[in-house]
Structures are given as C-alpha cells and as structure tokens.
C-alpha cells in the first residue's frame, strides 16, 4: 500500500512539474529566431546569390559557345584537310 502511495506521489510530482513548467522567457532555448525579427545586420545578404546566378549564366554560356566554336573549327579544318588531300568538292 505504502509502495503504491509513494509511486503515485512520485508520478504526480513528475507529471505535475512538467505540466506546470513554463517556457523560459526572453528567447527560445534552441536559438531559433524568426526571420522577420532578425536585426538587419544579421540577415543573409541577397546580392551574392543574385550576382552569382547571373555570373554563372554568363560563364556557362560563354564556355558553351566556346566549345561549339572550337568543335566546329576542328571539323571544318578536317574538311579542308580532306579536300586538300583528295582534291575534290566536299559538299
């Protein structure tokens, strides 16, 4: 009987303490701060992402144009070489 009463008391204490516990005031325990409440200096700057995206587009397209031009020049050089060797019309 005594054992049951002490078990009930311990359970009540544990559950009661948890139920009546208040969240700590003045900030979240996990360090989460809503984006809207960040001070301006701590926000992630957008400019590097925008500049990065447009710079990547420019570099990618210039690189791709260069590869097309390079491959086309090589094939046309080979065609001319073939024409020189065989002396006939190629097209």
């Amino acid at each position, binding site marked *: 009987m005594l054992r049951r009463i002490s078990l009930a008391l311990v359970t009540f204490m544990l559950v009661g303490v948890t139920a009546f516990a208040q969240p700590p005031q003045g900030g979240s325990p996990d360090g989460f701060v809503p984006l809207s409440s960040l001070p301006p200096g701590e926000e*992630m700057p*957008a*400019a590097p*992402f*925008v500049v*990065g*995206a*447009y710079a*990547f*587009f420019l570099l*990618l*397209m210039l690189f*791709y*144009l260069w590869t*097309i031009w390079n*491959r*086309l020049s090589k*094939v*046309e050089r*080979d*065609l001319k070489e*073939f024409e020189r060797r*065989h002396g006939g019309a*190629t*097209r």
Partner: protein
Amino acid sequence: MVMRKLFVPMLVITAAMFAYSPIAIANAPYESTMRLVQKIFYYHFPAWMALTVSVTVCTVASAVYLFKGNARADRIAAAAAEITVIFGLFGLVSGSLWGRKAWGVWWQWDARLTMAFLLELIFFGYILVRNYGGPGAEKLAAAMGIFGGATAPFVYKSVDWWRTVHPKTSVMTTLGETSPQMWYVVWFCTFTILLFMGLLLAARIRLEEQRATLDRLYLEAED
C-alpha cells in the same frame, strides 16, 4: 539555308536584347517578401522555358529518327539534347542559389526539384550514350530522348500535383494581373533567351551536319 541568312541579324538582335535585360531587371519592382533575391527569377524561368523547347525538339526529332530513320532528325535531336543539359544545369544552379536565400537550404528533395534533377540526368545520359555507346547508340539515345520528353510534363505539373516547397504554376498566370511590370520583364527575358537558344541550336546542328559530311566523305574515300 534560310537559317544561315538569318543567323547574323538574329545574333545582333539577341545581343542587343541581352544588353538591355540587366536594365529591365534592375528597373522591375521588388517582390514584397523575397525582395532582391527574387530577381534571379528573370533568367531562372526563361532558362526552364528554353529547356522545355529544347526537350520538345529533342523528343520529336528522336521519334522521327526512331520510327522513320531520318538521319537529319537524329542530328537535330543530338543538338537539342546538349542544349537541354546546358539550360537544365543553369536552372538547377540558379534555383539552388535562390533557394539558399529564400528557403534557407541549397537543395530540397521534393517532387519538383527531384524530378527536374532526374530530367537533367536523363539528357546527360543521352549524351553519354551517344558519345560512348558504340555502333547503334543513336537508336538507344533516341529512345532516351523520347523517355526524357515523356518525363517533362510531370516535372511541370509536379508543383500542382504534390506538396512541394517550389511555387505553383499559377504564379505565372496571375503575374500579369498582380504585377504587369514584372510580367513584361519576365517575358522580355524569356523571349531573349529563347532567341539565344534558337541560335545555339542552329550552331549546334551545323556542327552535327559538318561531322556527318566528314564521316560520309571518309566512308566514300575508303570504298
């Protein structure tokens, strides 16, 4: 022949439009919640539009080659597949940069992003098969091109069918009413990039044609 005559005037027009696009983008109004980072949209959306066109070209040309045996269609498909990979790569990278700022993560394995990544892999696979697949690889690549084309509508509709972090397709349909100035800049950039894609495609097809001519000449010389 017509394309060769139009190539230089189209190149000049496209270059002029590209030169004006940063001014148009800078003058476009800021989106209310994302502010500056939303400006990535003005090349991000057009890149996916260019990809849609190149996927369509590749799929139709692949089907023509596979079922009719038209060699020119195969060359068009090969050119379009490469352009698909280029615009897909830009779309994924620009989306990742935008997502890092807007969502706080570089990448999210949600339906839209994962399907777009798979589409990119399919067309990258197409190029690998064509380059390293050996004799007969063109037909296998054509089948991959058709399969890639069949995947594209799922990529487009994924944001409407499943819960994703990516905005829905309705963003573009309502943009004309909510912000006509942004709508105008988006379509200006889209038209510019589509013109550029057309030029890239023409140049890339020319490369395939010249390669085919060279191969034919070597084969004739051997006989």
